[in-house]
């Protein structure tokens, strides 16, 4: 296990005041906020910053960490000595609130004692429900149409008989129902953190996000795609084949369609009790005038149609 230099993470000196630590945390929390940050790995960096702040903003944790960490450098191989924390008392509430289950093995090793859990040598006298867990999951648009199975690997805190917490990997085989939309949340009862004593496990919440699709774009329940057509198909009307996220349909293009026209396929968006619609946005593609016949046809149109696309501008 590598030693983590929490001072380095927050960019403050070891002798920084509580106020300086708070200011540094807020600056970084703004910089790496996952909703607005354009930094690479913003979410991972935010987790590191949160973890560092959870230790350095708590006077007792900070004091214990300082006593332990004075001789270590960031990245150095690290094992905490036995009874390293003698004389310090932590609430361990990071594993009972505020997303502490996302913290590193290093944090779990140092401060991972279950909230309200038994102290060393005591027997468990509490029954507390486990913490709910939250995760994001990326699925393909096709999965929203058909449903899908996914294997998820989560790191969950496990509490031993002494009330000490370690992080363990936990794999789940999850059936994602069809009809899910971007930003919706799935709930898996009893798949969160384990309870303490006879307390029930918490629940797992999965926030759905779609992988970018090369052809389809999603807005809520509705799905959009560009359909490229020839000028004569747009002008005269035509029946063309259009592929959908699942399957394909024959689409009738009405005569006199202009570039950018939306053709709505009702109910062909993401399935639901009220399914979304699928919109095909027409893109008229012009053949090149790169041979005598093509030029002749364009010239005939120019001569005989008397068409001025900028007529209303003059």
């Amino acid at each position, binding site marked *: 296990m590598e030693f983590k230099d929490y001072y380095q993470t927050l960019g403050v000196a070891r002798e920084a005041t509580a106020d300086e630590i708070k200011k540094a945390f*807020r600056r970084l*929390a703004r910089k790496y906020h996952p909703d607005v940050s354009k930094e690479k790995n913003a979410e991972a960096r935010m987790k590191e910053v949160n973890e560092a702040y959870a230790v350095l903003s708590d006077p007792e944790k900070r004091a214990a960490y300082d006593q332990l960490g004075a001789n270590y450098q960031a990245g150095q191989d690290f094992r905490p000595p036995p009874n390293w924390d003698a004389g310090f008392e932590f609430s361990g509430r990071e594993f009972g609130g505020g997303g502490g289950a996302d913290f590193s093995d290093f944090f779990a090793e140092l401060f991972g004692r279950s909230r309200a859990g038994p102290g060393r040598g005591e027997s468990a006298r509490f029954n507390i*429900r486990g913490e709910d867990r*939250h995760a994001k999951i990326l699925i393909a648009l096709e999965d929203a149409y058909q449903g899908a199975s996914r294997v998820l690997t989560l790191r969950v805190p496990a509490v031993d008989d002494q009330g000490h917490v370690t992080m363990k990997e936990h794999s789940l*085989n999850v059936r994602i129902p069809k009809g899910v939309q971007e*930003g*919706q949340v799935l*709930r898996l009862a009893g798949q969160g953190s384990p309870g303490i004593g006879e307390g029930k496990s918490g629940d797992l919440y999965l926030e759905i996000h779609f992988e970018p699709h090369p052809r389809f774009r*999603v807005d809520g329940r509705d799905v959009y795609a560009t359909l490229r057509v020839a000028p004569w198909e747009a002008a005269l009307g035509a029946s063309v084949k259009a592929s959908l996220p699942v399957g394909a349909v024959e689409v009738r293009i009405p005569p006199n369609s202009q570039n950018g026209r939306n053709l709505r396929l009702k109910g062909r968006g993401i399935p639901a009790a009220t399914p979304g619609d699928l919109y095909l946005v027409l893109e008229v593609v012009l053949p090149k005038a790169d041979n005598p016949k093509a030029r002749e046809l364009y010239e005939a149109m120019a001569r005989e149609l008397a068409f001025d696309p900028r007529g209303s501008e003059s």
Partner: protein
Amino acid sequence: MTHELTAMLLDETLLRLDELASSCTVTREWVIEHVRAGVLLETAGPDPTGWTFTSRDLIRAKQLCSLERQFEANPELAGLVADLFEELDRLRARLRREGLSLE
């Protein structure tokens, strides 16, 4: 590997007050305060035990909670920032629909 677990769509079952509070690791009083302040749950009746919360409410409650913890924001300021995040999401979705992106 465990057997296949079926995930339930939260918007079909919804969360009750205590479930939302537990899920965000806040007290039920925190949730009631934020609903009463008008920053959580668009329409709420007088009785908190009758309130139900959607996926959007859960994500928003987590955002509010995180903003208040990280920046010591009051509920109204956290609500304003959460409103801006939601507007940003809508605009990003609109750009995606047009085949464009902010990046």
